[in-house]
């Protein structure tokens, strides 16, 4: 009898397991293509959900993974609908499962825009995973600012030959509104534009030699700015090389030499930047048109003045004349919202120039910054409404440079490791009106999905203004089937899917949602005090205190920076590395619960 009961139960269990289903996972628990959760994202609170209950403030996004599971190959359709008058806007993306070369595992990351109802078959034909049984969709729900607070219901419906299924979705919309202003700038860096030709080969072939001057090319550049803007970030594209070569679309065309050097034409520059500086490139976005907050200028030791004249009157004449013309052009166009960065990226190890513009290690190189500060003061009227900033990316010698270059450099992008020795630096630099960012890099997909939240949180706990993901547009030669992990990519080229613009990633979405939460969290600082909010967030995130996010200044910092080694620095930053090395998958979810708790208490 007992045996018969076991057989019946076994058959029942097998039938249940074999049924088609539509299920959900929280954003930090990424599904794999076989109906499981990727190993690094598993945690007690990361369970499959047969119904979804969400809570969200207005003026922001709330997200989750919707997963279709089929017991066998076959066609299916899936949809998600909310009550008609909810006002909630739904964005749906099919999650691409990338096979990584390093650990031969699948991770969902690139997000391909699709519409519901979505009809396809399992395995998803283009993803080519032979034994795939689960297809994931990233669901973004945008809650407009004017949505009435309350509870809204929706339902996801799956239809397939293996059976039909439903997933109830309920969302409680709070009266709180996510502030439009971010508490930290999340920047995404890139170099030049030749990568656009390689990532969009069909487009490049279509336009041939005209590609780099076509309207399509500039729209493509703008689409990169737009995707980062829509994800509460910014985008930087450096337009010159380490020996001073300037890409034509990054600078006005120049003519003449010495005192006769002048701008000959603004055509490509204006087509590139005009819509970015007046904000019209962002028309139609949910955040609305707004000028980009920062941009690299093409100024380098070889542009606009030729290095041939360095140290001679001709260098000053060329530099001052052209930079003055730039100031006038920007002023006349009304481009006064964007911070125009004079930034030296070159390193002497790349043999272009004799000094390091980036990460000065040898103190003698600071003299060049002082000289360029003098030239800039001569070129730019003190009363200009154009917002020029002199930016320096600093590491080894930042402590000394903060002193020596005070009043010259006004924007500091610091190595995060070394900045962690100077907890007083952000306030000290802010006091004199400087901007402070730090450097980071996107975590690979093989790290827990929550890892990317570390960077906005760190910046907010430190009280800095922003951070930069060093390179965010290079997914490697074959991100689709031989993925390198994505440590230099948060977006993917869309051309493979017929999209002539970048695709977002799961990591980019999680990062956006995190900084959105931070904006909401900081809005409670009047009631709760900023220090208290920081303490609670750090505690919930990884049981740390804000003080633990700083390292003690090491004794070797008293020695000249050229006497330090990279290993010394690693040892002196190990303490913060340790508290962040085993981040729990739901680390940010615990902070979000705190934010939502505060938000739900708001009338």
């Amino acid at each position, binding site marked *: 009898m007992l045996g018969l009961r076991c057989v019946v139960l076994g058959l029942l269990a097998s039938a249940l397991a074999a049924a088609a289903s539509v299920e959900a996972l929280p954003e930090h628990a990424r599904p794999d293509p076989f109906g499981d959760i990727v190993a690094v994202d598993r945690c007690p609170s990361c369970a499959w959900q047969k119904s979804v209950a969400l809570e969200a403030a207005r003026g922001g996004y709330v997200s989750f993974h919707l997963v279709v599971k089929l017991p066998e190959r076959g066609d299916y359709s899936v949809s998600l609908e909310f009550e008609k008058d909810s006002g909630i806007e739904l964005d749906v993306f099919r999650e691409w499962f990338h096979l990584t070369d390093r650990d031969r595992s699948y991770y969902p990351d690139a997000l391909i825009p699709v519409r519901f109802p979505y009809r396809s078959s399992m395995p998803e034909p283009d993803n080519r995973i032979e034994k795939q049984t689960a297809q994931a969709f990233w669901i973004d729900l945008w809650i407009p600012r004017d949505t009435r607070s309350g509870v809204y219901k929706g339902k996801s419906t799956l239809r397939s030959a293996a059976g039909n299924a439903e997933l109830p979705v309920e969302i409680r919309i709070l009266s709180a509104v996510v502030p439009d202003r971010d508490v930290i700038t999340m920047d995404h860096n890139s170099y030049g534009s030749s990568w656009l030709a390689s990532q969009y080969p069909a487009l490049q072939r279509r336009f041939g030699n005209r590609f780099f001057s076509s309207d399509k090319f500039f729209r493509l550049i703008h689409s990169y700015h737009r995707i980062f803007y829509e994800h509460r970030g910014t985008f930087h594209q450096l337009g010159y090389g380490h020996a001073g070569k300037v890409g034509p679309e990054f600078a006005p065309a120049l003519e003449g030499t010495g005192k006769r050097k002048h701008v000959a034409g603004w055509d490509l520059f204006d087509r590139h930047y005009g819509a970015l500086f007046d904000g019209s490139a962002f028309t139609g976005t949910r955040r609305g048109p707004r000028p980009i907050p920062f941009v690299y200028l093409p100024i380098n030791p070889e542009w606009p003045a030729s290095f041939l004249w360095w140290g001679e009157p001709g260098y000053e004449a060329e530099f001052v004349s052209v930079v003055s013309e730039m100031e006038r052009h920007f002023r006349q166009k009304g481009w006064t919202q964007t911070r125009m960065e004079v930034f030296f990226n070159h390193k002497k190890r790349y043999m272009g120039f004799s000094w390091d513009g980036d990460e000065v290690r040898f103190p003698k190189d600071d003299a060049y910054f002082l000289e360029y500060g003098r030239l800039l003061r001569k070129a730019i009227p003190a009363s200009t409404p154009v917002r020029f900033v002199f930016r320096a990316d600093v590491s080894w010698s930042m402590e000394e440079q903060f002193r020596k270059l005070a009043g010259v450099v006004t924007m500091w992008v610091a190595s995060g490791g070394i900045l962690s020795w100077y907890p007083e630096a952000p306030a000290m630099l802010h006091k004199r009106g400087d901007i402070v960012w730090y450097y980071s890099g996107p975590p690979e997909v093989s790290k827990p999905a929550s890892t990317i939240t570390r960077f906005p949180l760190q910046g907010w706990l430190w009280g800095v203004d922003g951070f930069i993901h060093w390179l965010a547009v290079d997914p490697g030669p074959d991100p689709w089937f031989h993925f390198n992990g994505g440590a230099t990519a948060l977006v993917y080229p869309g051309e493979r899917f017929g999209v002539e613009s970048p695709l977002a990633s799961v990591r980019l979405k999680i990062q956006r949602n995190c900084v959105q939460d931070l904006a909401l969290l900081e809005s409670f600082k009047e009631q709760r005090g900023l220090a208290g909010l920081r303490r609670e967030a750090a505690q919930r995130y990884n049981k740390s205190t804000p003080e633990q996010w700083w390292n003690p200044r090491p004794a070797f910092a008293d020695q000249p920076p050229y006497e330090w080694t990279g290993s010394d620095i*690693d040892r002196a930053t190990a303490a913060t590395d340790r508290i962040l090395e085993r981040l729990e998958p739901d680390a940010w979810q615990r902070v979000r619960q705190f934010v939502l708790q505060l938000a739900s208490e708001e009338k």
Partner: protein
Amino acid sequence: MKRLLLSLAVVTSTLSAAPDDFVRQLEEAARVASIMIDGDLCQKIVTPRAMEFMFQTQPRDKWLASDNYDVDDAAFTAVKKTLIRISRLISFPADANLWMPVAGRPDKIRIVIRNANEMSQFWPWGALYQNMIPAMKKVLDSGRPLTVSEKPGWASVLAPVSNSLGDVVALVEVASQRSADAHANVK
């Protein structure tokens, strides 16, 4: 060896044909470079400290050599300015780059100064030093210039640079592309 044979084959083929204006201009600039570049000054560019670190490696510090790379500003600037002037002898975009052998390491060669068009047929982006290029070895050994066209559409004329003792201590690569890529190496 394959690279050497290929280089020599290309060199031979380039030299056996009458040089077109593209190559002729590069060769003329290279001839001037051999006269105008001061070999003694070139030897002062990279600091002894940088040379000391150049071949050091540490598993936990992969940037050890490049983080310690440093140059003498005055020597670098003086030679670079002359290289820029030499490139301006040419009517199309071209660069004059300085290369030097490594004392005690005859199997290695290093680029020391690059210029504004970021053109070179030989420099793998970012290398502090690299394996000796057979055509460069030939120039250093023979003291005679050589025209090399390894990459399609490219030409480089390698010109020897001597110091006051009459030793060939460096070479200038005068390089250009028949169809210049305005976007390459903007990074």
